[in-house]
C-alpha cells in the first residue's frame, strides 16, 4: 500500500516536461489544422520541446489563468507541436511531415514559440519565449481586432 501511495504521489509531483498546459483542448497539429479549416477558425499553435523550462514557466504562470483559458479555448483551435519530435503527421495537402519539421517550417527556433495561424496555415502573429498573463491577453485582443477588421479569421 505504501508503495502504491509513493508511486501515485511521485507521478502526481513529476514535473510537466514540454507538455501543453492542463485544461486546454490542445490537439496534434494536423488534426487542429483540419478542424480549423472545417470550422473556419484561427489556430493557436504552441511549439514546445521536452524539458523546456520557459514552456513550463508559461504553463504554470500564464496558462493557469482562468480568463486566458476561456478566451483561448473559445477563440482558437489549439495545436501543440513538440519541435524536437519525429512523430509523423499528415497535413490536409497530403504532405507527410514530422512535428520537428513543422517547427522548422514555422521557424520555431526557440521554445516556446506561440503562433496564431489562419485556418489555411498562414502565420498572423507570433509570440517568442516565456509569456505572462498580460502578454497572452494582449495577443488575444490584437488577434480579435485583426479578425474584426478583416472580417475573416
Amino acid at each position, binding site marked *: 500500500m505504501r508503495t502504491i501511495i509513493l508511486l501515485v504521489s511521485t507521478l502526481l509531483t513529476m*514535473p510537466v*516536461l514540454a507538455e501543453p498546459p492542463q485544461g486546454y483542448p490542445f490537439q496534434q497539429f494536423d488534426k487542429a489544422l483540419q478542424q480549423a479549416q472545417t470550422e473556419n477558425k484561427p489556430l493557436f499553435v504552441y511549439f514546445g*520541446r*521536452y*524539458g*523546456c*523550462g*520557459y*514552456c*513550463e*514557466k508559461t504553463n*504554470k504562470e500564464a496558462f493557469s489563468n482562468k480568463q486566458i483559458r476561456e478566451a483561448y479555448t473559445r477563440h482558437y483551435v489549439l495545436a501543440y507541436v513538440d*519541435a*524536437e519530435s*519525429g512523430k*509523423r503527421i499528415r*497535413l490536409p*495537402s*497530403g*504532405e*507527410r511531415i*514530422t512535428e*520537428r519539421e513543422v517547427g*522548422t*517550417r514555422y*521557424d520555431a*527556433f*526557440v*521554445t516556446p514559440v506561440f503562433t496564431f495561424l489562419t485556418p489555411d*496555415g498562414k502565420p498572423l502573429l507570433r509570440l517568442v519565449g516565456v509569456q505572462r498573463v498580460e502578454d497572452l491577453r494582449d495577443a488575444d485582443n490584437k488577434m480579435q481586432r485583426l479578425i474584426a477588421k478583416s472580417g475573416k479569421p
Partner: protein
Amino acid sequence: MRFQTAWLGFLLTAMSLSVQAQPWEFGEAVAVTKTGGKGIFHHLESAGRHNIAVSAETVAVAWEDNRDGTPRIYLARKDRKAPNFSAEVKISGSGEAYEPSLVALSNNRFALAWEEDARIHARLVSPAGPGPIVILGETDAAQPSLASQGEHLLLVYSRRDGRYGRIVIERLKIDGLTLHPDQGCAVDAEPAQDEQLYPSIVSLADRTIVAWEDRRPGHTIIMAAQNKNEKFCSFSSPQRISEGRQGRRSQSVTYGKGNGVSRVALAGYGKGQVLAVWADKRNFREGYDIYSARYEPGNTQLFGLNTPVQDSFGSVAQQWHATLAGNPSGRLVVGWDDDRDGDANIMLSWLEGDGWSDDIAVPGAAGTGEQNHPTICLDREGNLYLAWIERTTVDGPTRLRYLFGRAIKD
C-alpha cells in the same frame, strides 16, 4: 565613392580567394528521380542521415516518397561518370515505409535498412538486383542506421521496450545477397530510464561506436558507448557527449531541465578517428547551431570538448539537418541547411588543421526557394557526393537533387 569601389573590390577579391580555397569544384545539379509533381513529397530522412553512398563506380541515393499514395523506399543509382541516374528500384514491401539508411559494400553493392509497418527491414542490392528482405524482431521499432564491418552489416535502431524506445544493435552476416541475423543486444545494458532515439553508428577496425539521443535527465542529450569486436554485446557504460550550457546563467532556476539537442550523426575519418555532430540549442536565442565532438579513445571520456562547426556568420542564423562524411585520407566535411541568406541553403564546412573552415553555400544547392535535408558522402579521393530536397514554395511539391564535387588536388 572611391572608398566604396575599393571596398567592393576587396570584397570580390576576398570572395574569389574564398572560392579558390574550396576543396571541391562543383558540377551541375541533376535530378535523382523523374517522379514528382503535385502531391508527391520526397523525404531524405534517416537516423545518422546516411541516404547517399558510393561503392566502386556506383553512386546510390535512397529515399522515401508517396508516388503511389503510400510512403515507400526507393533506390536510384548511377555510374560515377554517367550524367544521370537510372530508373529507381522500389526497395520496401507492401507496407508504409520510412527513413531508409544506406551503406556502401564492396563491388557496387549496397545495404539498406528502413522502418516498415513499425518493424525494421533490411536488404542488400547488387547490380543484378535486390536480395531478399529480412525483418528484425516482433516489437515496434524505428530509426535504423547502418554501418558495414567486413562480411557483416551492423544495424542500430530504437526498439520499444515498455514505455520507452531503447537503442539496440544487430549484427547480420552477409551471404551473397542474403542477410542472416547473427547477434543482437541493447547498447545500454541498463533498462531505459526515458526515451533513447535516433542512433548513429561507426565501425572501426576493432570496435564499434554508437551515439544517440537520450532523454534520461528530463531533456534531450547526446550519449555514446563503444564495444570491442571480440565482445560484441559488451558495451561501455553510456557517456554524455553533449555539454550543457557552460558559463551561462540557467534559463530558469525553477523550471525546465536543460537545453535541447537533436539528431546526432557519426562519421569515421583518417586512421581510426571519429566525429559526432548534432543540432544544439545551448545558445537558445539564435536557435539550433551545429556542434561537434571528437572521439578520444585514449581518454576517460569517449568524446572531447564540444566545438561549434558553423562560422560566426552562421551563429546568428539557425542550422538544421546536420550530416557529415569522412574518408581514410583524413578529409572530413559537415553539411547542413540554414537560412542566413534569407532562403534555406545547403552549407558546408570542412576540417582545416584543428579547426573548421569558413562556411560555403554550395553552388547549385543555394539560392531562391528551399534547399534542405542534405546528405553527403566522400570517396577515397575526397570527391564529394551530395543529395538534397528542393522546393520552390514552402509547402509545394519536392524535387530530389544530386550534385558532384570533384576534389581539387592540393
